[in-house]
């Protein structure tokens, strides 16, 4: 196996791993942000991802919008969807035990999947092609989809922007305060519902960016399309240390590299590719349960 490995293949795989990691990062951040502020594993996140792919599909195929406008509109619509899901399914349970909120998120997840089957039909749709991203560039003897060059750039800009928002702005400060202590945040005059809505909007919009990347790379849409990427990105967030945004990014790239590199070096395992994430999850839970960048501190809430 290894004797067939060429430098070209290796470089191509690295590029592929970076782009897959970039995609995972966009979705993993949403899991980690919602966990940070609500201590909730948001099962509906993978379905928000799925819905956003349909938004892009319909905006381009039915409304015939050019792709840049369709992408922006889909990102905004997904942000609104995140706010609506939070307001309808989680806000009424603010004082309820956390397990109730978790169950509610599983309910919303099933609801959206079944909504997808009924309204969009279970038949697979084709994600609209965008040649600007999908065309191939040749550098030396290596072929890249343009996409794999753009994806890390988009992720880098998004992550830097998000970290700036959280570390340097007033709403970011309110988000950090709210994630630690609702009561004291309220005493400061912070409307915690607004802060939580903002968190959902940001997480959902980033998931939409991730979904667009996914759709361009694997152009099939169906109502269950979010489940596998959702699970993997949740695992990436746990690996990095759930609740920690930088951790989610680290976990996402680590998972991307593991998946691609194991297949490159041991092609015989390629049909088990989707299982690596779960093996990594088990390994991290055994070795470092708080995740790579997670705090060891016990959960006070």
């Amino acid at each position: 196996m290894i004797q067939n490995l060429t430098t070209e293949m290796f470089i191509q795989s690295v590029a592929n791993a970076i782009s897959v990691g970039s995609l995972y990062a966009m979705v993993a951040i949403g899991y980690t942000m919602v966990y940070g502020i609500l201590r909730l594993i948001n099962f509906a996140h993978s379905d928000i991802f799925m819905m956003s792919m349909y938004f892009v599909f319909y905006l381009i195929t039915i409304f015939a919008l050019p792709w840049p406008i369709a992408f922006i509109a889909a990102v905004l619509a997904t942000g609104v969807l995140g706010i609506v899901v939070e307001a309808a399914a989680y806000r009424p349970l603010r004082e309820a035990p956390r397990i109730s909120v978790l169950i509610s998120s599983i309910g919303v997840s099933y609801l959206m999947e079944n909504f997808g089957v009924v309204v969009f039909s279970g038949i697979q749709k084709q994600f609209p092609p965008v040649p600007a991203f999908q065309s191939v560039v040749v550098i030396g003897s290596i072929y890249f989809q343009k996409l794999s060059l753009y994806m890390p750039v988009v992720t880098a800009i998004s992550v830097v922007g998000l970290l700036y928002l959280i570390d340097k702005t007033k709403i970011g400060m309110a988000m950090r305060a709210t994630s630690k202590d609702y009561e004291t945040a309220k005493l400061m005059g912070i409307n915690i519902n607004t802060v939580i809505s903002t968190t959902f909007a940001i997480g959902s919009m980033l998931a939409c960016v991730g979904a667009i990347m996914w759709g361009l790379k694997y152009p099939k849409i169906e109502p269950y399309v979010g489940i596998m990427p959702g699970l993997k990105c949740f695992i990436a967030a746990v690996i990095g240390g759930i609740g920690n945004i930088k951790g989610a990014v680290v976990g996402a790239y680590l998972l991307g590299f593991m998946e691609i590199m194991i297949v490159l070096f041991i092609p015989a395992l390629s049909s088990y590719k989707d299982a690596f994430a779960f093996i990594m999850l088990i390994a991290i839970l055994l070795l470092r349960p708080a995740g790579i960048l997670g705090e060891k501190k016990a959960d006070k809430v």
Partner: protein
Amino acid sequence: MIKVENLRVNYGSIEAVRGISFDVPDGGISTLIGANGAGKSTTLKAICGLIKPASGEILFNGESIGGKDTVAIVSKGISLVPEGRKIFADLTVLENLKIGAYLRKDSLKDDIDWVYSLFPRLEERHWQLGGTLSGGEQQMLAVGRALMSRPKLLMMDEPSLGLAPLIVSDIFSIIKEINSKGVTILLVEQNANMALKTADVGYVMETGEITLSGSGQSLLENDAVRAAYLGT
């Protein structure tokens, strides 16, 4: 400034506050003293909307605020230094001060300077994370943070708890200084001696009820108070 009438607060079946009435006069320092579990913190929490009263009235400058949302109450000019300080551990000292002024849109410079002049230690450590401050420094930060909203009424829940005796007298003189700037104060204290010496009006709470009230001086001289809270 604050008028509480027949306030009752329950936690499930526990009656923590059982129909108390008291006044916090404009511009003065009032204190609520009493043993552990008397219901002092519960009363303060009810005033700022962190707990909904079971019944009774809370009037702020004549306007009913009982049962209102905390953000609405705080934005009227009430600020609480909570029991146990509740500093945001992952925010810097300066950020903790800024978040105290969350509802304000004007310049914070004068207020930050004022807080730094009250507590020079905070200026030295403005870059440090709140969670890494000592207990006494955290208490200073909690008071400073509460001042940043420019409150009309500042409520403090045991600001002297866990402080060295020298710092305790500092805190009380700072409370007087804050009051002299026109901020009405409602002080909850275990340190009955210092509290009553500082306060214009005092109330003694026992198991959810107010059993005694009067000027700070008259309570200091009251035999029952002396026996129960001053140990003399």
